[in-house]
């Protein structure tokens, strides 16, 4: 059992370790490991304007996606949780989980078809990229929020608030939003991680000047190996920061409960 675990860990870690080595390696042709050591790939990456722009685009899209997902997801999750009929809840669940089941490629083609028309000529804009990321990441946020609402027994908390004299607005802002604070935070970190790493949809709908980091990264693979490794390491670092933050948020939540 332990052997299997270690082998699997090795299998997971090896590519990352090789990428890390390669990003500092001077040359890497026809050898198992790279030769020499240098920082020039990172320097080149830093100096490359298209990567710098992509990095900025990714951050902007990520933040905007988080904001939009929060503003849409919280009321939507609340509406689904509070929906009267069980049938409605199940139907809403299937609907909002659809983007998880449907390949992002399908969504991308749909976007290309609809938004390359003359009536809706928005293909290639950052706004459309953000909209696409919201569609893809919202299910994960919704899932977290609805589960937490059920776990907290939000309906009873609201009944209590109402018996104490709270109207709808007071209940929503005094009880619903703050008691969901932790799951909102951990859900949004997941949204951020997904948005930063998203490639399939972005590759299809991003405009040339609004390409996010993963899309530009693909171009790097056609160039020097060390440069590609360094660019991947940067993405990996970003994703790791997001997932570590997610773990930390979850731990904080468990400590509170």
């Amino acid at each position, binding site marked *: 059992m332990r052997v299997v675990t270690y082998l699997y860990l090795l299998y997971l870690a090896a590519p990352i370790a090789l990428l890390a080595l390669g990003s500092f390696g001077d040359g890497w042709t026809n050898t198992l490991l790279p030769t020499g050591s240098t920082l020039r790939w990172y320097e080149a990456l830093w100096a490359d304007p298209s990567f710098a722009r992509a990095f900025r685009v990714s951050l902007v899209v990520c933040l905007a996606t988080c904001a939009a997902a929060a503003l849409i997801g919280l009321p939507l999750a609340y509406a689904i949780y509070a929906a009267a009929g069980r049938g409605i809840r199940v139907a809403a669940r299937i609907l909002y989980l659809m983007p998880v089941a449907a390949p992002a490629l399908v969504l991308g083609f749909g976007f290309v078809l609809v938004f390359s028309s003359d009536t809706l000529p928005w293909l290639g804009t950052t706004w459309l990229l953000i909209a696409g990321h919201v569609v893809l990441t919202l299910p994960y946020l919704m899932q977290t929020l609805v589960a937490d609402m059920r776990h907290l027994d939000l309906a009873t908390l609201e009944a209590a608030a109402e*018996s104490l004299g709270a109207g709808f607005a007071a209940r929503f802002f005094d009880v619903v939003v703050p008691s969901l604070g932790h799951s909102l935070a951990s859900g949004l970190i997941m949204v951020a991680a997904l948005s930063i790493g998203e490639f399939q949809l972005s590759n299809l709908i991003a405009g040339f000047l609004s390409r996010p980091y993963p899309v530009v990264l693909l171009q790097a693979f056609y160039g020097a190996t060390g440069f590609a490794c360094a660019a991947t390491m940067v993405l990996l670092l970003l994703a790791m920061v997001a997932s570590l933050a997610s773990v930390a948020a979850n731990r904080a939540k468990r400590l509170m409960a």
Partner: protein
Amino acid sequence: MSIAVDHLGFRYGAGTAGLDDVTLEVGPGELCAVIGPSGCGKSTLLKLVAGFLLPQAGRIAIGGTDAGSLPPRARDLGIVFQNYALFPHMSALDNVAYPLKLRGVGRAERRRRAGEMLERARLSAEADRHPAQLSGGQQQRVALSRALVFRPRALLLDEPLSALDAAHRADMRDEIRSVQREFGIATLHVTHDQEEALSIADRVAVMRGGRLQQHASPRELYDAPVNRFVAGFVGHANLLDGTVTAPGVVTTAIGPLACDTRTQTIGAAVVALFRPEAVRPAPAGGGTNRFAGAVLRDRFLGSLRRFDVAVGDGVVMVETASREAVAAIEIPPASIRLLPPETTNPRGS
């Protein structure tokens, strides 16, 4: 302030469960416990009074004014929920201060009043803790403080003790009683625990199948239940189907029982009720209502001993402090109460 419900009716969809023609009044300062098996309508009654459900028939008055169509927040009721429903993101103090905040009380004033409530609940040291850091009993006391801090017109308790372990339940029971007395507030206490109801309430309402069976003081409920259901639900009971065969005699499965039959006619079907503690172990031999029998199950419960005796074709449950072997039992005629036979319609008084 009082709570009065008048011919209250409610039905969930096309189902049968709900509430059927319930009339009940809880006077000022009175604690009324509502008991009954699950599905009897007690929770529905509470939700209707609280305003979480709207009645389809009848009226609800709180403090003498009609409240049947008011939303819950306008009814001015303190409610303690089964799982306390404390706000997890607020400290104990903020929880208690929240209803005052909603009523526009200034920050300093509401913190002072909430602090006072926590002090009388002996929770001053825990004021800044969050609910997750409090024990069940402490959460319960915070919930009770929050429900009372704004001086509501009436108090509703929804199974408030069911989440506590047995050791704390009795203490909390006394605490609820003393706070309720102190505030002199009309209280509706829904519970499935008849011991809790008998020990805490001024009057107890027994419900079954959406109907009120009997509304009386705990003592009256125990001593003079109106029907077989109430007799069986409140305390332990021997209930024997029988027929009045002669003046002063009811024939049952255990044999002829001598008892007062003046309210009955000869040939009437009745249910004979007598409590296990009224039955006395006796030496074998003749005597009024003396029956020889074999002990079936003998349970030693510390302060008392409860055993079943097979007599004739029936079984009699006996409670006694005596630890002697038993050969016969005696049922004092005065302890026997005749109830109407069970009808299909469990309509009570």
